[in-house]
C-alpha cells in the first residue's frame, strides 16, 4: 500500500515538474520582454526541475546523495543566473 502511495506521489511530482517546464518555456517564443520571459523561465526551470528531482528521489531513494547535491546546485545556480541575466540585460541610465 505504502509503495503504491509513494509511486503515485513520485509520478505526481514528475508530472507537475513537466507541467511547470512547459508553462514556463512556452512564453519564450512569444514577443514579450526579456524580464517577463526570465521570470516565467526561472519559475519553470527552478521549481519544475526541483519537482522532477524530488519525484526521482521518492522513486529511487538509494541515490539520495547525488539527488540532494543536484537540488542544492539547482536552487543556487538557477537563482543566481536569473539575477545576473536580469542585471546584465537591463540598460543602466547614463548619469
Amino acid at each position, binding site marked *: 500500500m505504502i509503495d503504491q502511495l509513494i509511486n503515485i506521489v513520485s509520478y505526481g511530482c514528475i508530472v507537475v515538474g513537466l507541467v511547470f517546464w512547459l508553462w514556463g518555456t*512556452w512564453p519564450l517564443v512569444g514577443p514579450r520582454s526579456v524580464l517577463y520571459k526570465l521570470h516565467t523561465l526561472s519559475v519553470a526551470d527552478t521549481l519544475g526541475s526541483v519537482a522532477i528531482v524530488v519525484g526521482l528521489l521518492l522513486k529511487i531513494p538509494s541515490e539520495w546523495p547525488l539527488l540532494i547535491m543536484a537540488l542544492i546546485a539547482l536552487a543556487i545556480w538557477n537563482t543566481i543566473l536569473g539575477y545576473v541575466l536580469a542585471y546584465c540585460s537591463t540598460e543602466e541610465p547614463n548619469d
Partner: protein
Amino acid sequence: MNWILGPMLLILLIPIYESFQDEDIWQKMLAFASVSTKTSIMILVISVLRDDWMIGVVGVLVLSVGNASLMLLAQVLKRVNE
C-alpha cells in the same frame, strides 16, 4: 519510467527553436540558460533510470559549470555593450 524522457525532449525543443529564431542577444542567452538547465535535469533522469552514479555526477557538473559560464558570458556581453 522511460516515458518521462519523451515530453522532456519535446519541451527542450522550444528553447532551441527560440535560440535560432530570435535576433536579440539577451533572448538567446535566456534560451541557452534554459537549454543548459533542462539538459542537465535530463542527464540526471537518465542516470537514475540506469542506476549509474557517474552519469549523475556529470549532470550536476553540467548544471553548475553550464550556469556559471553563462553568467561570465552575460558579464562579458554587458561590458561589450557599454
